[in-house]
């Protein structure tokens, strides 16, 4: 067994080198992301909203929502979508194989009656059973379909949509009432080159260590995946983002295969294959969740949903990286590393380091010190993200909240986030 120690140490040192390289790369992208986000914040304006609301030239938008149930939260979410400020928008609610009781709740809540609107057959989707409209108006359409997955539901929504633009919001999306006005601006600014837009918002100040660790995770994802990757024209929507896409583009891409993250990756690949310029715009949308909306661990659900979206995207497109341009060689490998490789490497390095330390203390000390420094580097990266975000975003928090978030990087870096992941899985 002592003969094995050098090999164990080689593995530990290699793991540390890989992790440190990844952290340094992430730091570079975080810095680029902070610059990008500061730039976008400075450029954003709501000056034209008044005209956009009134003008007949503003295109119609169909908002697709797939609520998981008929709970009070889901009903409230749909009511908030109906209250969005926009000239012409319709809300398409797709109910995936609802029970009779659930359907009765929806019918009662929104006074649903059979609609004349019939879905087109643009995209493959699970068969539609019924289409209802609310009180004879087409501003809310509720579609019931036979059991299918999320992609089926979203495609059913696209088939029924009347507007040339499709906005997708899941029930964890946080948005302001002006979100559609903000999202439509970049697509109207350059309709030929901008293939979509997605929102980001700074989450409200988290309470408790769990909330702060989730905020750190959200912050890093926003800064590297959405802001930082914009530098390589590979911006991907952050967790809980509302995404606006052109319906014809979705039809050309043959619709959704999973969630919006996978769709955006697919659109990048498609635009690249067509050899035309393409860009996804990141739009700031101040989080103005009203006080009557439940705030129980708001970020946790968004991060969980995001992890599932990343898994789907990697499952669908993980093997076709070379054809996807910057998304293929930067974004997807980074997501793959963060989702699967990093936890394994960190766990393996820790276990092997402990084994080596027990077997041969003297030889193992430098390697274990390197391991400690690797974890410290991770903590420093999180702290840097907090400072960069403070410079770029200037969130409305107190100095105490800023310090609490900064120092939450320590438990997060020491493995608290894995405890959170374990807790999520049990849930």
């Amino acid at each position: 067994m002592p003969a094995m120690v050098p090999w164990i140490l080689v593995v530990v040192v290699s793991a540390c080198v890989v992790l440190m390289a990844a952290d340094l790369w992430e730091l570079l992208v975080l810095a680029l992301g902070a610059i990008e986000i500061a730039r976008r914040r400075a450029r954003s304006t709501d000056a034209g909203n008044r005209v956009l609301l009134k003008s007949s030239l503003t295109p119609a938008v169909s908002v697709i929502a797939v609520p998981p149930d008929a709970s009070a939260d889901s009903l409230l979410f749909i009511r908030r979508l109906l209250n969005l400020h926009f000239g012409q928008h319709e809300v398409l609610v797709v109910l995936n194989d609802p029970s009779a009781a659930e359907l009765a709740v929806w019918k009662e809540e929104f006074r649903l009656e059979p609609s004349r609107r019939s879905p087109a057959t643009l995209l493959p989707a699970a068969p539609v059973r019924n289409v209802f409209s609310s009180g004879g108006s087409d501003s809310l359409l509720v579609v019931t379909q036979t059991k299918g997955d999320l992609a089926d539901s979203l495609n059913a929504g696209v088939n029924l949509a009347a507007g040339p633009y499709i906005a997708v919001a899941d029930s964890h999306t946080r948005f302001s009432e002006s979100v559609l006005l903000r999202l439509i601006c970049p697509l109207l600014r350059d309709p030929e080159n901008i293939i979509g837009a997605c929102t980001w918002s700074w989450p409200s100040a988290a309470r408790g260590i769990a909330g702060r660790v989730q905020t750190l995770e959200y912050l890093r994802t926003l800064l590297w995946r959405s802001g930082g990757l914009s530098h390589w024209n590979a911006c991907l929507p952050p967790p809980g983002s509302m995404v606006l896409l052109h319906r014809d583009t979705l039809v050309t891409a043959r619709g959704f295969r999973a969630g919006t993250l996978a769709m955006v990756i697919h659109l990048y690949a498609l635009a690249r294959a067509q050899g035309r310029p393409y860009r996804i715009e990141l739009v700031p949308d101040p989080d103005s969740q009203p006080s009557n909306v439940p705030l129980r661990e708001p970020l946790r659900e968004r991060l969980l949903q995001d992890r599932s979206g990343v898994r789907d995207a990697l499952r669908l497109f993980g093997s076709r990286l070379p054809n996807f341009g910057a998304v293929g060689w930067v974004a997807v490998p980074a997501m793959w590393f963060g989702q699967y490789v990093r936890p394994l490497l960190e766990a393996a390095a820790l276990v092997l380091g402990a084994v080596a330390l027990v077997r041969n203390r003297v030889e193992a000390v430098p390697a274990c010190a390197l391991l400690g420094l690797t974890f410290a580097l991770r903590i420093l990266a999180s702290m840097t993200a907090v400072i960069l975000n403070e410079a770029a975003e200037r969130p409305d928090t107190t100095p105490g909240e800023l310090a609490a978030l900064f120092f939450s990087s320590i438990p997060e870096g020491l493995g608290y986030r894995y405890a959170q992941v374990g807790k999520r899985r049990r849930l």
Partner: protein
Amino acid sequence: MSAVTGLAVTEIGWALLLAVSLATAMLFKSAGRKRAALEAKVRPEICESLALYMGGKSDLTGLRGFAKFHPQLLQAAILESHANVSGSVRERLGDLAVELYLVEHWLEGVHARHPAVRRQAYSAMARMADHHRVRQFLGDVPVIGLRDADEQIRLDCAELIARCGSAGQIREVFDLSLEDTPLMRLLVGHELRRHAWALCAEAVPRALRSPHRKTVVAALKLAVSWECSLPLEVSLLAEHPDREVRIETMRLLQFVPATPEHRGALQRGLGDGDLGVACAAASAAGRLGIPEAIPLLTSCLRRGSAELAATAAAALSMNPAGCQALEEQTRIDDPMASKAAREALEDVGKAVCS
């Protein structure tokens, strides 16, 4: 081991740097909160002094003090009050902006490198520009701002010129809006609506004669967005080879005089091979209520497009003769046409009942 030590030293240095950054950020935050608290205290005092001034008090000593120590707050208060008052009080506020050298301050701001500073300056000028003394200072600044890289500045300048610019400057705004992004065209177009008739005398016809398809489409879209009657002759554009030009022309036909040429153009649109053009023509024919279009609208019900059939049926349902034609269509074999006719008649019935 030396590499590990070097790395440890680097990380410690970095941690110290982060600690300093955190302390600085906290200090800035703390200072910002103190400033906000102070501003909350000063704002009512500024509003009070401003109210006294608007009420007729001519002593500017207090306001000069605020202009020295809280220029941003005073400017915000003046602009806010300016939006809420009218008549001689509004004039007094314009005089105050000149007396307190705010206009000179804005003119300095338009040359700033930072877009946020330029935005603020242009926005303030656009809001106060209807005051003649303020306007005397501006000169060509709004026209220069029309070419600024920042979208909001261009919009503010277009708004300013549309409100109190000369005819030549308004024509310039129109020409620039045709070259700008669709978003800016949409936003600026709204401001140009009040000058639609003046622009239709020369600028719009010139744009419609342009050899560039994009310019023609942009001018047509702009004219349609004004949604008012326009003295234009566009019948020739109904035969343009580009489908987008034809579609926009059909949309515009409902806003131009119903001359025989325009009626003929509408009928040609109804028979157009492109379904998008026919759809736009059907929609326009419904609004204009042209009797000679009824046979063509009836034939649109049977062209195999559900969207065109629905639009044509809706157009027919807008007059009694059309309703009669729809009733006949409910009895024919074509399921798409009869469904569209039935639904349109149901809508008419519902509208009558309500």
